């Protein structure tokens, strides 16, 4: 392969390298120069985890062919400060708690640094715009903005440097804003996530995934892939020595497709090779014969008699149905003076943690099969893997690497099994790093939901009965579906005491991308419906939305929807706190936005009108005019 000669300066050091002409600047930094503080979150210029300075301007290094860096001066997160030191921007991030999982943070620090270098006096709107190319999934950006404003003022000398110091305590560390212990390693890019780790002799894995939503596999021929120079092993379900199957509640998912595929992107085979590129080539040499089967793409279709069956054990395609019955809804509706019936739906949602799935597996000197990965559930994973590879529990070891965002999406063992099998088969450490697209197609999503809701109320606004029915698409595998339906049912009717309820939550198999655990585990979908209903009822009854909630809220001694008696319920306190804090103007929710007096307070932001950098300049001119 012809090579490209590059001569550039990186973090103050002159570098000459011969590299693959296909290299991006990101590859040069991470793979050749071991500067792994620069991350690859999406590979398509959409997230900013790879931002670096090139000749003083900030660029996304995943969008820059390495050749473009010829002769330039590059500054990465590692070059911002000397080891052991932090810049004011980094110290401010540490101070405010601006890093959570930390995966976006090197890019964020770079973007903040760039914003303040471009305009040391930038206002918050301009800072936000200048940082608009960097995505954070954990923090909600708020502590990041706070950090950049503190750093700006410290650099400008309008705020003393002591503003960056930790808060002191004389009495207790409980209730104290102790600075995050992990922040220095995150703001400096030093923390190694699984995809940043390397081991001696490490191979690279790539996965062949199903192009079909539902198909029988009649044959897999791996011989051509195995013959490709640089390939160490190819694995399929036939390499599983024990009892195949994983999942959170039901072990219905094989490590790699067994006999048939049930969704697009399901793993069919995997290759471990000397380089990612060879492994990728090899996956294309694996011949798979598929016989397409009729697919199921709608949860309502899944329940129809005669619908295609996705899993043999569940002929009705139902993964789980959770019923709650309390009191008698007929009596409750008979007592109602107002009955509202509505339907709601929520979409499938991607976790979008900035760190794509990654891991390394190896077999250690004691024959312990070891997997390092950002798994949210290493305890359960080792149980399942020990059965799958037929080894005692103490011969299976899971190490949880720093997790670059999880939100429930890293609870499923969707790739660790493949890593373990290939390490066992090749005798070498093997690393797999998902691409963003692979992460999106292969990992579970938030369950989409369709909810039918019927609520009866007295004219005083007391709920007399609720009939609630939710149908959810679980996709191709069970994963956390059962638990999600349970939580959705338990929380369904919200923090209100209702004497008569009938709640059903049902999740079915389809050939869509699987749904699984996602922050709130069904609680969000159910309560979106309930809280919409509460406002609709309040409008009809002419009640303030806080008032209708108070008239129904749970109290100490209330019986929940599952008939548990509560010892305490703080709903009264949070209602009051939100009402006071927001300076809420009381009144029914009857489209009174145009006449409210509580809008546009100092605790809101200004609407974004793009172009803050010249809008602000114009604003200054106008102010000057007025002053003169």
């Amino acid at each position, binding site marked *: 392969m012809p090579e490209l000669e590059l001569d550039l300066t990186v973090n103050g050091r002159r570098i000459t390298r011969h590299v693959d002409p296909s290299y991006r600047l990101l590859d040069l930094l991470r793979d050749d120069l071991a500067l792994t503080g620069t991350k690859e979150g999406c590979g398509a210029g959409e997230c900013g985890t790879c931002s670096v300075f090139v000749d003083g301007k900030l660029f996304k290094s995943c969008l820059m062919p390495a050749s473009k860096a010829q002769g330039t001066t590059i500054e990465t997160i590692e070059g911002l400060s000397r080891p052991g030191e932090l810049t004011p921007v980094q110290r401010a991030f540490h101070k405010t708690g601006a890093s959570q999982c930390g995966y976006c943070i090197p890019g964020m620090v770079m973007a903040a640094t760039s914003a303040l270098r471009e305009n040391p006096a930038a206002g918050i709107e301009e800072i936000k715009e200048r940082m608009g190319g960097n995505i954070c999934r954990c923090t909600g950006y708020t502590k990041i903005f706070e950090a950049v404003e503190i750093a700006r003022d410290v650099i400008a000398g309008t705020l003393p440097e002591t503003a960056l110091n930790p808060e002191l305590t004389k009495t207790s560390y409980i209730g104290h804003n102790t600075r995050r212990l992990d922040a220095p390693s995150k703001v400096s890019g030093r923390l190694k996530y699984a995809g940043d780790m390397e081991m001696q002799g490490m191979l690279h894995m790539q996965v062949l995934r199903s192009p079909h939503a539902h198909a029988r596999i009649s044959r897999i021929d791996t011989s051509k892939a195995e013959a490709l120079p640089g390939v160490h092993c190819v694995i399929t379900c036939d390499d599983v020595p024990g009892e195949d199957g994983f999942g959170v509640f039901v072990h219905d998912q094989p490590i790699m497709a067994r006999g048939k595929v049930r969704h697009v992107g399901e793993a069919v085979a995997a290759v471990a090779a000397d380089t990612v590129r060879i492994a990728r080539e090899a996956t294309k040499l694996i011949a798979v014969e598929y016989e397409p089967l009729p697919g199921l793409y709608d949860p309502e279709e899944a329940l129809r008699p005669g619908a295609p069956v996705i899993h043999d054990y569940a002929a009705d395609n139902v993964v789980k149905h959770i019923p709650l019955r309390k009191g008698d809804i007929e009596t409750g509706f008979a007592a109602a003076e107002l009955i509202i019936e509505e339907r709601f739906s929520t979409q499938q949602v991607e976790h979008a943690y900035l760190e794509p799935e990654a891991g390394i597996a190896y077999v250690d000197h004691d024959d312990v099969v070891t997997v390092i990965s950002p798994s949210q559930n290493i305890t359960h994973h080792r149980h399942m893997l020990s059965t799958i590879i037929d080894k005692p529990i103490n011969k299976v070891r899971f190490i949880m690497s720093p997790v670059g965002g999880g939100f429930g999406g890293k609870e499923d063992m969707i790739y660790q099994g493949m890593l373990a099998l290939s390490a066992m088969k090749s005798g070498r450490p093997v690393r797999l790093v998902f691409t963003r697209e692979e992460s999106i197609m292969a990992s579970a999503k938030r369950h989409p939901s369709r909810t039918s809701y019927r609520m009866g109320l007295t004219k005083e606004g007391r709920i007399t009965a609720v009939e609630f029915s939710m149908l959810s698409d679980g996709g191709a595998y069970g994963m956390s579906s059962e638990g999600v339906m349970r939580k959705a049912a338990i929380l369904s009717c919200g923090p209100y005491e209702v004497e008569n309820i009938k709640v059903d939550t049902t999740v079915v198999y389809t050939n869509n991308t699987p749904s699984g655990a996602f922050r709130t585990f069904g609680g969000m979908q159910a309560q979106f419906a309930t809280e919409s209903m509460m406002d609709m009822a309040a409008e009809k009854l002419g009640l303030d939305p806080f008032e209708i909630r108070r008239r129904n809220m749970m109290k100490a001694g209330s019986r929940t929807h599952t008939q548990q008696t509560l010892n305490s319920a703080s709903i009264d306190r949070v209602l009051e706190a939100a009402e006071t804090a927001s300076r809420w103007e009381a009144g029914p929710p009857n489209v009174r936005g145009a006449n409210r007096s509580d809008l546009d307070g100092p605790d809101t932001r*200004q609407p974004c009108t793009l172009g803050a950098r010249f809008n602000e300049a114009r604003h200054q001119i106008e102010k000057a005019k007025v002053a003169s």
Partner: protein
Amino acid sequence: MKRKMRGRGVAASWYGIARTATIDRAGAWAELDDGGTAKVLTGVTEIGEGILTLLSQVAAEELGVKPEQVTIGDNDTARSPEAAHAGATRQTYMIGNSVALACREAKARLFDEIAQAWEVPVEDLRSFDGFLWAESTNKRITMEEAVALCKKRGVVPVGSGSFTAHGTGLDPVDGHGSPWQAYVFGTQVAEVEVDTITGEVQVLGIWAAHDVGRAINPRGVEGQIEGGVVQGLGQALMEDYQTSEGHPVTHGFAKYILPTSLDVPQINSVIVEDPDPLSPLGAKGIGEPSLIPTAPAVMNAIYDAIGARIRDLPATPERVLAALHEKRRADAQTA
């Protein structure tokens, strides 16, 4: 109608802490180490929520050292006790309490030895921020000296802790049961501006009041609320994973749209503390519950602004505009 219409909405919520409808458990080991430092080992690590910092605060408080003197061991099924999974809003509650219990045991070992050496009642001993002293005496040493004295007496101050949360399963017929022993509640108000030309919604303010039991790190709690609100906002307004006959349509971040810095409202967090009576720390949790009220509060605010009810998420500009036009048609018919 003006181009930009504003409105406000509210939504309340509730949530259970730790694993659902089952017994939950977590274990931890603690050791007061040389130099007055501490080691804590437990089977769970950071997923970004700040658990390591929180555990170091809990250990520091329980043992009498500084948080930065606490080392939290790697999370490793072969080297650390089981703490189960990182999820279910269980980290503070389950791991925090198990670490507190482990530290209490380690400290009790240390205090027993010091009390004997000093010939004072053990109840009179206190430790904080790197010092150990006996109340109403002038006896005061550093934790480094205290650990050395304890070890000289032949005792390594170690402890272990296991914390249990007692949930019960649901009845298969009527669903009765006690899924959690601790509940939290939250309420959020949203203020929005709706562009009636484009249907675009900007969320300008969120007031988020959440009960967390006890805020061990208030800034960390705010961080969880802010992150939850913005994820909730993403689901409310733009995020939508779509497939066509099972084939993903939203492959990457160019199609799967996430909130950026320009979409974030000013978030005003109010931390409410209703301590949990069943656990040593009194803290409950905030990771998941902070997300729940955001989307309904925003939909209620959109309704307040333009009178259009969005029942199907997300409220994209296209959906909002369609709902607004539908409302105008309906209003015209009734007029």
